[in-house]
């Protein structure tokens, strides 16, 4: 985490899925996420939202929805952290 301060986790995930949009949709539905679509123009990366996970937490999320991580179709997964950004 930057500067040693504790990470703040959100209820958003970046998921790298092999199998395209349909597969992403299936995975989201299966594990209780909402698929917010591809992340910009990054192929295979999808934006998932889990409404049952607390919006801000200093702990990374636990629960069955984390089984998504182990799904063979998931190549990479990252729970999103809030990054502190300042204007120059």
């Amino acid at each position, binding site marked *: 985490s*930057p*500067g*040693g*301060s504790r990470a703040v986790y*959100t209820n*958003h995930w*970046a998921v790298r899925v092999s199998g395209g949009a349909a597969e992403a949709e299936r995975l989201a539905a299966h594990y209780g996420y909402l698929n*917010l679509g591809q*992340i*910009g*123009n*990054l192929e295979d*990366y999808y*934006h998932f939202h889990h409404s049952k996970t607390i919006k*801000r937490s200093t702990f990374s999320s636990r629960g069955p929805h984390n089984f998504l991580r182990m799904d063979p179709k998931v190549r990479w997964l*990252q729970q*999103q*952290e*809030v*990054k*502190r*950004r*300042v*204007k*120059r």
Partner: protein
Amino acid sequence: RVRRNPNFASFNDPLWPEMWYMHCEDNDSECRSEMNIMAAWQRGYTGKDVVVTILDDGIEKNHPDLVQNYDPRASYDVNGHDEDPTPRYDASNENKHGTRCAGEVAASANNSNCIVGIAYNARIGGIRMLDGDVTDIVEAKAIGTKPDYIHIYSASWGPDDDGRTVDGPGRLAKEAFEKGIKEGRKGRGSIYVWASGNGGREGDHCSCDGYTNSIYTISISSTTENGNKPWYLEECASTIATTYSSGAFYERQIVTTDLRKRCTDGHTGTSVSAPMVAGIIALALEANPLLTWRDVQHLLIKTSRPAHLLAPDWKTNGVGRRVSHLYGFGLVDAEALVVEAKKWQTVPAQHICVGTSNKKTWVIPANKTVRTATVTNACADQLDHHVSYLEHVVVRVSIAHPRRGDLQINLISPSGTKSQLLGRRQHDDSSEGFKHWEFMTVHCWGEKASGEWTLEVQDKPYHVRNPEMQGKLKEWSLILYGTVEPPSSNVNSQHSRSRMMEMPSSDMEPSKVAFFQTQMEMQEEEEEYTGPCHTECGDQECDGPSADQCLNCFHYSFGSLKAGRKCVSSCPSGYFGDSVQRKCRRCHRSCETCLGRSQNSCTTCKHGFYHHQETNACVMLCPAGFYAEMGQRRCQKCHPNCKKCIWEMDRCTVCKDGFSLVDNSCVMGCKAGMYLIKEPVRCENCRSNCRTCTGPGREDCTQCGRNSHDWKCVPSCGENYYADAVPGLPYKVCRRCENNCTSCDSSGKKCLQCKEGFSLFSGSCVANDRCRNTDDLFCELVKSNKLCERKILFQFCCRTCLLAG
């Protein structure tokens, strides 16, 4: 000086007269139009058909000064997941930043509103992405928005500048950068302009901002009206160029559009500078839409120059470019940029040479500097990775350290250019160190990549620290970016006209002025020198007959660009020929001639030094066993018998063991038990009982035969004494037995015979009249507890002890 051009109409925008950084209509203060934006307009470039977007907290698309150029297709709301980037309004107007930046780029001209944007005919959009949780996904989405439509992305934000943070683009944002560079603008690469590290607080260093340290972003810093360092500016080896901004008292501000359809002069910091350069690049893209993302960086570096900017660290890099950590290659020059852009030929393909990783762990003692070097051939053996002409240099570093803020890191290129990759940060007390953190410098731009690169890591504690907790440089590796061929004909016109126009000859050395003037004449007449070149040029080109006019040298180049450089067949004394760089490099200060830079590479020495052949070093004092031979200034060996000698081989002052000094000569000494008489030279016996001596007298005995008593040698120790063996001595020393004991064993602990009136009990002497009448019980106690073995106690019941035997 861009004076009001009579046939160039002024603008009716109310704040146009305040735009001192554009024109010089205000006669009573210094003209600061060196960014030459108006001159670029006069060449017909205003950013037409170029699309710019601002990554920030939104854009007020219906602002009267923006509405005309606003482009919805260059906009998006990542925070709100919709197409409308209008900022969220609140009482504090906290979301004003994006609108202010947008105005600098493309505020309309001559609409009687606010200001005139630098690219006042470009299309402007906004990506709203800061007004909410900023995550890796949010940044990736912003950076990757419509890369085939948007040409330039301007960002004036970054990680916290609390002086403790080390942060940069996450995995997704990095992928978005790379994708934008590879595929954006139909393969020519999206242009990312980033405000150099600064968030308004001090004690930070921008190399901990991973965005400005990325090779994909054009990092821009700021200077004040008078060329001073704004109070907020951080030094940065990755800064490419600079624009004016506000940030100093009593100096003029920057004006721009503001939220709620207003105007402001309160926009400041490097937040101002990124959009300015975005606007200037828009002019260049109008002049040449085919420019790639690297072309743009080359052009900026080529055309920016120090002008009147004040920096303590201006230096000339290995190819003659002036560069500083505060301002990069200096103030941008919009006119030079569009002129060069117009005729620019795309630079050769980028090569990436990833150096081998140095995994040797170095301890970094406090208040010390660790210096480690790596020699690279810049992947000359790998065709697709070979880098000859440098662009970006990245150093990937892993350091463990108890207090990261105490670290300072420098990188020295083969041409001797020193970049400060990291400065100390007084607030950073993190113990995380750096894990594969990538520092980047542009200071070596254009230099040759191969040779020795030196990394310096200094540990300068702000506070007293536990000395046992030391930092460790765990791993570091070089990543060299550049081209294998020179950036072609763009190099020839390297000293571009605008550069020479801008650099007042008064502060240039006469030789340089002459050099430039000849260059100018040459250029204006466009004639190539076709006469013969000096032999030292080899088959390289030259632009004159003498050895200092070679393009490159056949043998060695001697001197520096500042002092004048020429080609020589061999290096003068005090220098050695670096065969890799083909350059004369300075020997160690003590060497007259040498084979390398270190002090152990001398072959001959300067006056006052002597060459020590065993170490190839030049020393002021020859070591023991050698004497200083004046003629050849060498340390020559002494006579084999001499431990030390002076002036001559056999002028001994100290002899080796077994030899004796006789009139400065070392002669074989006498055997043990004898001593040497010099006149005539002979050996005589020592006194009896004396093992070695230096003369006949009692005091001359240096080692006893058998025993020594009161420093006298005796055959045996007397009464009350025993002979004690002393480690390291070939003889024994008489020592006194215990009190009342007249004879004791060799350990001295056990008495064998007592004085009169004392009786011997278990090796000790006890007065005869003590302890006769002790009662039984007490003795029984002593006896049952076996206390007799305790020497102190048995006196209480001697008789008991006697009985106990």
